[in-house]
């Protein structure tokens, strides 16, 4: 009898210890204080950066990232929210990480544009990859997007549907399908509007590419957008999301159908106008320059700096049809060890790069007093 009591006590102690170990992981939201409501002070309200908090698990790092975004003077962020993470089983939602990110962003006075994608296993056929979604899953995705819009009512007002569907690798390694993407868009649009009519749907987020029709890699963004219109996409989105990378070219280089440069977005705008969609705005949800010393599409650090600031200014002064310019990418949780690290504004250790400090000086209107050559 005594032995049995001892065993029971032992089990109880073990369970208590186990609970103590598990509790912090369930209540991590309380590890950092939100602090008073902040606001972004900037001379350019179109400035934005794409954060990469999807796989950032430590709340203080999420907070620090968004604090630094506010301090750089960028009122907009784009962040990726994984369908697979937030709906691990059909109809079972887990918004804990997304709540953490969005609440901290809102607390810092930032406007969040939410990019949705990444298909859970339960929503796709076996042995397909996480970007594969066929027509049988469109309603599932629409239901998820609607649930997201409803849950984040008042906190998120723009949702991007998919990313770069004009690339085969972003379309589940299948031939790209503008009509199929349009079909997806037209399932999502009414579902989201029914759940939260304040949310605007962003379509496209097309990769700037020169891939000709029939290419195994994808289809150039200009043809793809026209084919979206041909398939009836116009009533199924409110804003066009565009990607504007400059590669090795200045932000003032003229646009051309056979060149990938920053002003290529003007050609997308022309297509919108030609299709009677000229009253809609564009959001540049990715873009920028890279200063990797070896990548063939990179520029020197000084060029990256000049081009970035000029691009922000161009969006403000020359493009009234553009709501924001969101540069890729603010910070990675850890180094990628590739050229991607040379897109960032701060290091993994939160050390600001010169481009961060110069962009901050620009947003504060101090550019003329800064240390530029």
């Amino acid at each position: 009898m005594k032995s049995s009591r001892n065993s029971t006590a032992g089990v109880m102690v073990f369970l208590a210890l186990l609970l103590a170990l598990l509790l912090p992981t369930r209540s991590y939201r309380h590890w950092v204080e939100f602090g008073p409501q902040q606001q972004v002070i900037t001379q350019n309200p179109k400035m934005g950066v794409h954060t990469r908090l999807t796989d950032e698990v430590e709340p203080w790092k999420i907070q620090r990232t968004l604090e630094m975004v506010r301090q750089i003077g960028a009122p907009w962020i784009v962040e990726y929210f994984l369908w697979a993470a937030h709906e691990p089983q059909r109809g079972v939602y887990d918004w804990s990480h997304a709540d953490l990110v969005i609440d901290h962003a809102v607390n810092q006075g930032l406007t969040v544009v939410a990019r949705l994608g990444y298909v859970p296993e339960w929503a796709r056929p076996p042995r397909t990859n996480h970007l594969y979604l066929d027509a049988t899953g469109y309603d599932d995705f629409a239901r998820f997007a609607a649930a997201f819009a409803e849950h984040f009512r008042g906190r998120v007002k723009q949702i991007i549907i998919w990313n770069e569907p004009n690339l085969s690798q972003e379309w589940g390694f299948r031939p790209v399908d503008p009509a199929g993407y349009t079909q997806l868009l037209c399932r999502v649009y009414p579902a989201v509007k029914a759940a939260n009519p304040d949310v605007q749907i962003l379509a496209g987020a097309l990769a700037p590419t020169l891939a000709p029709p029939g290419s195994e890699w994808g289809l150039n963004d200009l043809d793809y957008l026209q084919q979206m219109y041909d398939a009836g996409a116009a009533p199924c989105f409110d804003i066009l999301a565009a990607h504007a990378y400059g590669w090795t070219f200045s932000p003032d280089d003229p646009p051309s159908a056979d060149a990938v440069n920053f002003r290529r977005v003007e050609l997308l705008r022309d297509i919108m106008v030609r299709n009677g969609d000229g009253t809609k705005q564009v959001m540049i949800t990715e873009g920028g320059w890279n200063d990797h010393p070896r990548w063939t599409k990179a520029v020197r650090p000084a060029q990256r700096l000049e081009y970035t600031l000029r691009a922000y200014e161009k969006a403000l002064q020359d493009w009234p049809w553009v709501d924001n310019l969101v540069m890729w990418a603010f910070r990675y949780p850890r180094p990628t060890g590739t050229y991607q690290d040379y897109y960032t504004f701060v290091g993994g250790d939160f050390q600001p790069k010169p481009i961060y400090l110069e962009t901050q000086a620009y947003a504060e209107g101090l550019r003329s007093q800064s240390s530029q050559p």
Partner: protein
Amino acid sequence: MTHRRWATVVVLILGLLSGILLLRQTILGGGDRTWARIQQTGVWRVGMDPSFPPFENLDGVTGLPAGFDVDLARAIAARWGVRAEFVGVGFDQLMDAVVANRVDSAISALTVAPHRTEEMRFSEPYIEAGMVLAVPETSQLRPALEMAVGRSDAAAMLEAAQVLAGRRVAAEWGSEGDALARRLQARVNGDLRLVLRHATDDALRAVLAGEADAAIVDAISLALFGGDGGSPLLAVGQPLRSDPYAIVVPKHAPELLRQVNEALAALRDDGTLAEIKARWLRPQER
């Protein structure tokens, strides 16, 4: 079963496993299939992206790889009595090519990536490419800076900043050198003037022209800087941020890693590494 019998069974199993491991090591050359294959075929497959002179490039006349890393690979291979076979791989895929055993090693001005050490191994460094403080040979700041950055740690940054207080430091605008110069500036509460230029060479020229007292640039750019008379600027002390180049080998190739490190040490000792450095990292005609 008694405890004694259990012990006997455990000892027997351990003995059997040890025998299998020993046999495997004997057959496969120290358990390192990559090294065994290099020995067997006489070919060392070296991955590189020949687009980064003077470390690796395609020779304009022969169309063959040429450069510091090419000569280094050949010197190592010669010590082993094998031939270095160069395999062109894009820079961003080089490490993955090693992990996937598409090549036996990668030598391509690759810096050590601590976050990838679970997947691959890095040799001892063969050259330092990090950020250094450069001053004229005759600079009066040299002795104090040598003392300050004689070691590589956070205190060195503070001491360097104190020596440079009230002075002018040049760097390429937006570069890592610029970032470090701003950190030095912050440590002396702004009492350090930044002299920023659009290119690394222009930052170094600012020092030569007397527009700056020192420059922060990468060690390779400094080595390549100069004219007919050679570089009149010298790096002082240790790098402010170390960034050495190393050879990448597969994780499961301990013997190859040992052989690479031994060869590098030997090439350093017999002066071959210095010769290669002198051949490829001499000041360029501008």
